[in-house]
C-alpha cells in the first residue's frame, strides 16, 4: 500500500497554504506537526478531495485519487478538525446513517464493535444533542473507522478529550495502524511521541523535516541542555535562548534549554524529547522568517 503526494501545492489567492508537498507513505502512523496555518488541514482537505489542489497530484497505489473518486472514498476515513453531527439522531442512528453513506451492507455488528471501541456503548441510544465535545469526537472517530479504511486521516483527534480518553484513543490509533496508512495532525506533541512512527514538520505550507520520529529526536541530540541558574540569570537566559521548561527551586531555577551551543557554564547535555524538537525547528524557522 502506497500513498504518494507529488509536488502538491494549494494557493488561496496570493496566499500559499501548501507548497510543493511531496511524501510517500506506507502502512503506519504519520503525524503532521506544525503551528496553526502550517498547511496541515489544507493537506488533509486535498487528500479528502474537499478542495482542489492548485498543482500536483496524490496517488494511491499508483492511481490518482481524483480519478478513483468513489473508489478511493470507499477505502478512506476522515475525521475533520471541526464538524457537526445530526442532533436529533441517536449515536447508533448516526453510525447507521454513515454506514449507508459509505455503502456498507450488514453494518450492525461493525457498529456494535465500534461503539465499544470508542466507549460509547452505554450512550448508543442517546441523542447526539446531549453529547459532550469528547463524546462527539469519539463518535467522529467511529464514523471514520466504519468502512475499515485503508487510509485514515484524523485532524486533531485528541483535542477536547480527557487524559484517559486520549490514551485510549492513542492506543486505538496504534492498534488500527498495522495494515493501513494513518495520518493525523495535532498540536499535542506527546501524542506524536507515543504513537507516530513518522513525523512531518510543516511550517508556512512547507515541509521542514520529514523522517521517522526517533531520527527526528536524535537529530537534535547534544542540543538540549539543563542548567541550574540563579534568579538573576533566569531572565537573561529566557531572552537569549529557547527555553522548553523552567522548574523553580529555592535558590533559583532548573532550566531546560534548546541550543546549538552550551548556553550556561554549568549546563549539562540531556536527552532531547519531541517537544524540544518542536521548539528547535519551529523557533528556528520563525526566526529565519523574521
Amino acid at each position: 500500500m502506497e500513498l504518494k503526494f507529488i509536488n502538491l501545492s494549494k494557493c488561496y489567492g496570493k496566499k500559499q497554504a501548501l507548497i510543493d508537498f511531496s511524501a510517500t507513505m506506507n502502512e503506519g502512523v504519520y503525524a503532521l506537526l506544525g503551528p496553526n496555518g502550517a498547511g496541515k488541514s489544507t493537506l488533509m482537505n486535498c487528500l479528502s478531495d474537499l478542495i482542489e489542489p492548485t498543482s500536483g497530484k496524490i496517488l494511491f497505489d499508483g492511481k490518482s485519487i481524483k480519478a478513483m473518486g468513489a473508489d478511493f472514498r470507499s477505502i478512506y476515513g476522515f475525521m475533520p478538525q471541526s464538524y457537526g453531527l445530526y442532533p436529533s439522531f441517536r449515536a447508533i442512528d448516526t453510525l447507521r446513517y454513515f454506514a449507508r453513506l459509505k455503502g456498507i451492507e450488514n453494518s450492525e455488528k461493525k457498529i456494535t464493535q465500534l461503539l465499544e471501541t470508542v466507549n460509547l456503548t452505554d450512550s448508543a441510544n442517546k441523542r447526539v444533542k446531549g453529547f459532550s465535545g469528547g463524546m462527539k469526537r469519539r463518535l467522529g472517530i467511529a464514523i471514520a473507522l466504519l468502512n475499515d479504511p485503508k487510509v485514515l486521516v484524523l485532524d486533531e483527534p485528541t483535542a477536547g478529550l480527557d487524559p484517559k480518553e486520549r490514551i485510549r484513543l492513542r492506543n486505538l490509533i496504534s492498534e488500527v495502524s498495522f495494515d493501513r496508512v494513518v495520518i493525523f495532525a495535532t498540536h499535542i506533541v506527546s501524542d506524536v511521541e507515543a504513537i507516530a512512527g513518522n513525523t512531518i514538520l510543516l511550517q508556512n505550507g512547507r515541509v521542514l523535516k520529514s523522517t521517522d520520529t526517533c531520527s527526528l529526536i536524535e537529530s537534535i541530540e547534544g542540543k538540549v541542555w539543563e542548567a541550574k541558574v540563579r534568579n538573576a540569570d533566569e531572565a537573561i537566559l529566557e531572552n537569549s535562548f529557547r527555553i522548553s521548561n523552567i522548574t523553580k527551586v529555592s535558590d533559583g531555577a532548573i532550566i531546560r534549554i534548546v541550543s546549538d551551543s552550551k548556553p550556561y557554564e554549568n549546563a549539562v547535555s540531556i536527552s532531547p524529547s519531541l517537544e524540544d524538537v518542536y521548539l528547535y525547528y519551529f523557533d528556528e524557522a520563525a526566526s529565519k522568517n523574521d
Partner: protein
Amino acid sequence: MTRLMYYEWYKAFGGFKWLIIVVILIIKAVFTYQSLDVSVDFSIPIYREYISELSEMSQSKAEKFILSENERINSVLGGYTEMESAYSSGKLSLEEYKAYIKIYHDAKSKASAFNAVYQKHEQLSMLSNENRIYFYDLEWYTFGEYMGLDFFAIFLIMIFTVPIFCREHSLNTHHLNMVCKNGRTKLHITKLMLGFISGLVLGLLAYSIDFAIFGLRYGFEYSDMPIQAVMGYSHNADNVSVLGMFAAMSVSKVLWCGCLALMICGICALLRNNIISVIMCAALLFFPMQVLKLNENSPSWLYSISILSGLSGSKENIDILTPLINTAIWIVINLLVTATVYTKRRE
C-alpha cells in the same frame, strides 16, 4: 438508495417536525373553512330559488322565463314614479297602490339576485346546448375563488425543503458526508428526490384539505355538471365536469409544488445557507410576477415559467404540460448544480 432516503426523510420530518405540518394544516383548515363562506352581494336564497326553478325547465322554457321575469322586474321597478304620482293624484286607490307596493318590494328584493341569474343566462347562452345547464353553483364558484395562491402550501414547502440541502452546512456535517463513498452524487440525487416528493406530498396535503373542508361543508353536489356552467368559467374549453376541473387544477398545482421544491433544492445546493436561500427563492418566485405587473408587454413565457402563476388560481384551460416542462427544466438545472458543486466548487 431506499435506506439513504429513509434517513434523509427522518432528518427532514423526523422527531416532532411532523407536528409543524399538522399545526400548519390545522390553521389552514380553519382558514379554509372561513374562506368558503359564500359571500355575494345578492340574496343567496332567492338566487337558489330561481336556479332551482330554471333547472326543472327545458332550455326554451327557461329562456322564455328569464326574458319575461327580466321584463317584469324592470317594468315593476321602472314604474314606481308613475304609480306614486297616480296614487297622489287620486287615479289609483289605496288598495291598488298597496298591491303595487307589495309587488314592487318583491321585485326589488329579487332584482340583484335575478341580475346574477340573468348574467348566468347570458354566460350559458354562449355555450353549446349540452353545457347550458342551470344548477346552484355559488359554492363551487366560492371554491374556485378560494383556490388561488395557497401561501400555506408555499410556506410548508419552503420550511421543509430549504433544510434538505442547507442542513449539512449549518450543522457543519458536509465534510463528513462528502468523504463517504455515496456522500456526493448519490446523496445529492437522494436529497433531490426527497425534495421533489416532499413538494408533491405537502402540496397534495394542502389541496386535499381544501377538498375535504369543502366536501364536509357543502358536499359534492352538482360535481358532475360541466365546468362552463359555473359562474366565471364560461371561457374554459375543456370538456370536463366541475369536480374534474378542480381535481385537474389541483393536480396541476401539486405538480407546481414539486417544481417549486426542485427550484428550492437547486438554489439551496448552490447557496448552502438557509436564510440567503429563502430570500433568493422568494425573489425568484415573486420577481417574474412583479415584472408582469409593472409591464403589461412583458413576454408571455415569463408568465409561463413563473411558478407563482402556476400556483395562482386559473379559470382557463387545464394545463398539466407547463408544470411538467418546468419540473424537467429544474431537474436538469439541479443535475448541473450537482456536477458544479461536487466537481468544480467543492469548497
